[in-house]
Each structure stands twice: as structure tokens, then as C-alpha cells.
């Protein structure tokens, strides 16, 4: 009896330790980036770093304003493409298709998530960029190309969380709505989507997190020019791309500047996540 209790306690402590190890990892990452990046920020000044337009590490100019704007636009573009497609696909799979069909199609869509990002990037470079260049103009490697590729990459996240949310809506809601004379589409639009809203929003937010953090595919298709984009056909460089492109060569102040870019990216993602979860909480409370 006693040894049994001991074992229970042991397992409990072990699990606690394991659970905190993830948090500990996060803490270490945050500390490390801050340690490498903060000296630079205090030396150059946060304002000059974030609002300056010129990034010329060789001549000591470190301004990441164009990249912040680029990261925001690319993420926004990806949401513009990924969110409607993803939600529409989720509605189709849950409301308009027999169950067995859904159970064969959904795993296939989830396979999309398993494709490495280099492959997406490769397809972007070989297929998408030339299409954009010949039909729309510009260099092809552009904000638009990055948005489309990222929009496709975040589809599985949005679809799979949205279908789960829609599936969780009780059937009595649908029956009630139909009994009141609503058509199938009216039911979906006015009842089901409203009821599943917070789940769908968290799917979209998770997709957004993936879009802003994606690096490899973006480096390959965005062209990486450091300037504030004038149109969607301009080439852009995101914060993540900047770090990955130049880390291999950077020494001294340049290296610290890349870590400081990491600090800014980190703060950005935390802000977005906090905003998003606050939004979801509010949604839940309103119900």
C-alpha cells in the first residue's frame, strides 16, 4: 500500500517536472535572445532600429522598418487567402458531404501539413513566380507569391481546427433551425458558424502564427529585397527571412542586430498571440 502511494507521488513529480521543462525551454530561449540582442538595442536605440528604412549592415545602417511592414503584409495576405478557403472547406466537409467522404478527404488535407516547407518554396519558385511574372508583371518573386504559398501552407491548420469546431456544434441547433424553416445555407450561415465561431477563430489564429513564423518557403519566393512594398508585386524581406539569410555570415554588431531582429519578432508574436487569445476569451464570455 505504501509503495503504491510512493509510486503515485513519484509519477506526479515526474509529470510536473516534464510539464515545466517546456516552459523552462521557452524561458531559456527568451533569455538567450534578449542577452544577445539587448546590448545592440541599447547601443543603437529601439526607435532608430524599428523606424529606420535602411538596412546596410556593412556600412553600419540597421533599420528594420521595411521588414516589419513586409512581415505584416505577408501574414495579412496569407490570411486573406488561407482563411476564407479554409473555412469554406471546413463548412463543405462538415455540412454538405456525407460522413464517410469527409473521413477520407480530411486526412488527405492534413497531409498538406506534412509537406516540408522547402517543397512549397520550390513549387513557388518554379511554378508560381514565373506565372506571376508573365501575367501580372514585376520580378515574380514577390509579396503576392509569398502570400499565396503561405495561404496554402496554413490551410490544413485552419481546416482541421474549424471542422472540429463545427462538428462540436450540437445537432439540435441545426434541427431547430431547419424546423423554423431556414434553408440549409441559412442554417450554416446563421446558426452553425455563429456557434462554432470561437473555435474557427482560434484555428485562424494558429494559422496566422504559422504564417508569420515561416522562414524557408518565404526566403525562396519573396525575393528578399529590403524595401517597403509599394504593390503586391514588389519583392519583400520578412523579419524571419532577414535572420536566416544573414546569420551564416554575420559577426560583431551585425550578428547582434540579427538577434535584436529576433527580439522584435518575438515581441510581435507575443503581442499577436495575446491579442488573439483575449479576443477568443471575450467571444466565449459573450455567449
Amino acid at each position: 500500500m505504501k509503495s503504491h502511494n510512493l509510486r503515485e507521488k513519484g509519477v506526479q513529480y515526474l509529470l510536473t517536472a516534464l510539464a515545466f521543462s517546456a516552459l523552462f525551454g521557452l524561458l531559456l530561449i527568451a533569455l538567450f535572445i534578449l542577452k544577445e540582442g539587448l546590448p545592440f538595442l541599447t547601443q543603437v536605440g529601439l526607435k532608430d532600429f524599428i523606424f529606420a528604412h535602411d538596412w546596410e549592415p556593412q556600412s553600419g545602417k540597421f533599420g528594420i522598418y521595411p521588414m516589419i511592414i513586409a512581415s505584416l503584409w505577408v501574414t495579412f495576405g496569407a490570411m486573406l487567402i488561407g482563411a476564407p478557403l479554409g473555412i469554406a472547406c471546413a463548412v463543405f466537409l462538415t455540412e454538405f458531404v456525407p460522413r464517410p467522404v469527409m473521413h477520407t478527404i480530411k486526412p488527405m488535407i492534413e497531409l498538406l501539413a506534412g509537406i516540408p516547407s522547402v517543397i512549397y518554396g520550390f513549387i513557388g519558385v518554379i511554378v508560381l513566380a514565373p506565372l506571376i511574372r508573365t501575367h501580372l508583371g514585376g520580378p515574380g518573386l514577390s509579396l503576392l507569391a509569398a502570400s499565396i504559398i503561405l495561404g496554402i501552407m496554413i490551410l490544413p491548420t485552419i481546416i482541421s481546427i474549424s471542422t472540429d469546431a463545427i462538428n462540436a456544434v450540437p445537432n439540435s441547433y441545426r434541427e431547430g433551425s431547419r424546423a423554423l424553416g431556414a434553408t440549409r445555407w441559412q442554417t450554416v450561415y446563421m446558426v452553425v458558424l455563429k456557434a462554432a465561431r470561437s473555435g474557427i477563430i482560434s484555428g485562424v489564429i494558429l494559422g496566422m502564427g504559422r504564417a508569420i513564423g515561416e522562414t524557408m518557403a518565404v526566403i525562396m519566393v519573396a525575393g528578399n529585397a529590403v524595401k517597403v512594398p509599394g504593390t503586391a508585386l514588389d519583392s519583400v524581406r520578412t523579419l524571419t527571412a532577414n535572420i536566416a539569410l544573414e546569420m551564416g555570415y554575420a559577426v560583431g554588431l551585425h550578428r547582434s542586430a540579427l538577434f535584436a531582429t529576433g527580439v522584435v519578432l518575438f515581441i510581435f508574436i507575443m503581442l499577436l498571440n495575446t491579442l488573439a487569445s483575449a479576443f477568443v476569451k471575450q467571444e466565449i464570455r459573450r455567449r
Partner: protein
Amino acid sequence: MRRAFAVFAVVLFFVLIAACGNRRSSITVAGSTAFQPFAEKLADQFMTNRPTANIIVQGGGSAVGIQSTLSGTAQIGMADLVSLPEEAKVLQATEVARDGIAVVVHPSNRINDLTMDLLRRIFNGSIRNWRDLGGNDGVITVVSREAGSGTRISFEQIVGELVLTKEAIVQDSNGTIRETVANDPNAIGYLSHGLLNEKIKAVTIDGVACTNEAIQSNQYALARPIFLLTRGERLPDTQAFIDYILSAEGQQTIQSSGLIPVK
């Protein structure tokens, strides 16, 4: 299952011990990614001739090559810069090869020759259409390497007074530069001449084509030396490795893999 795992662990343990016990004098070579594959090949050949030596080749770029030689973490640094920076003056530099930087355009481009001045004006953004150079109507897509790349630093130094246009697309390797130029009829880029192929066209600079002979005789302007850097007294193995690279056999390897020998 569990027993198999235990056996595996014990074997692994002894293998690791054995690996650590076999202490050979090891030399670390670090730096230029352009020369890294050559250094690896040369190190392999060198070690078959001289089994007591152990040479570890790492990349990191020319700047890392200089820094790690200064700090002593690498015994030999590789740098592919036209002129070495001030802090590298204390190091002993030996030129072991030369590399040409080819300026490349799409094969369909009608332009075959550019002067150094035109090159500067294309890359700084003051000439923006191929029409102005007598080519087809099309906005020039300037393709460059990322900041810090030895190829880019050399290119900008040789062309002189070059501030890259903000419109320039940035790619992070010779290979992706080649793909980008091969896929865009209006692109212009630069890359190590060893990577030229039929998908892209190299233009002549001031009438001189980017060939081995022209680079070796200094007629082709866009060429850079590749240096091996050492600090202080060289160890016997370090000296022997550098001697091997400069030997007829080493230089032959360099030439057959696409760089230009110095001898």
C-alpha cells in the same frame, strides 16, 4: 527488446570511448563557403597520403574564417576577399586559388557586353530598363547575394562605389542566383564562374570574357583571390597541408573542380 537496447548502448559507449582515445593532431579549417567544398576534397586527398593528420573543414563565410583564425579556434582560415580587412593584417595570408565572378543574364537577352560603368549603374539602380542598353524592353531584375557574402563584398569592391539598389532581389547562394536568373528573362546577377552552365549566359566585361586564361592573367577584372590565413608559427601538419594545396596535385584538383589555380 530491452536486452537489444542494452547491448546497443554498451557497444555505442565503447565506440565513443575508442573514438576519443584515438587522439590525432587535428587541424580546423574554417571560413569561405565558396572554397569549402574544395578544401574538403583537398583534405580528403591529403589525409589518404598522410594518415596521421586529421583535418576538419567548416564553412561559415570569410568573416568567420578571419575571426576564428584570429581567436585560434581554427588553425587555417579561408577568405575569398579582394582585400583583407585591417584586423586580418596580423595573419599570414597565402593565395591558393583564384575565382572569377561571372555576370550572368538570361540566354534570351540580347546584351553580350557590359562596361564596368554600366554594371555599376545597373546594380545601383540608375539604369532600370534593358531598352536603355539596346536590349529588349523590360525592367531589369537585379539579383544579388546577401550582405556579408564574400562574393558580394568582392563584387562591390571591384566594381567600386556601388550602393546596391533597394529593388534588388537577394538570394543566399550561387545556386539560387543561377536558378533565379535562368527563370527570369530580365534578370542580371553574378556568381562564381565555376557554376556557369547553359541555362544562363555570361556577359563579357569591357570586352573580356570570363575564362580561366583571362582570370589567371588578370585581364578579366572581376576576379578575386582565395586566401588561406594562419596566425603565428605554423604547425608541421598545417604547413604540409598548405604545401599540398600549392603542389601540382593540389592545384590540379582545384582546376578540375572549377577554380583557377595560382600556379
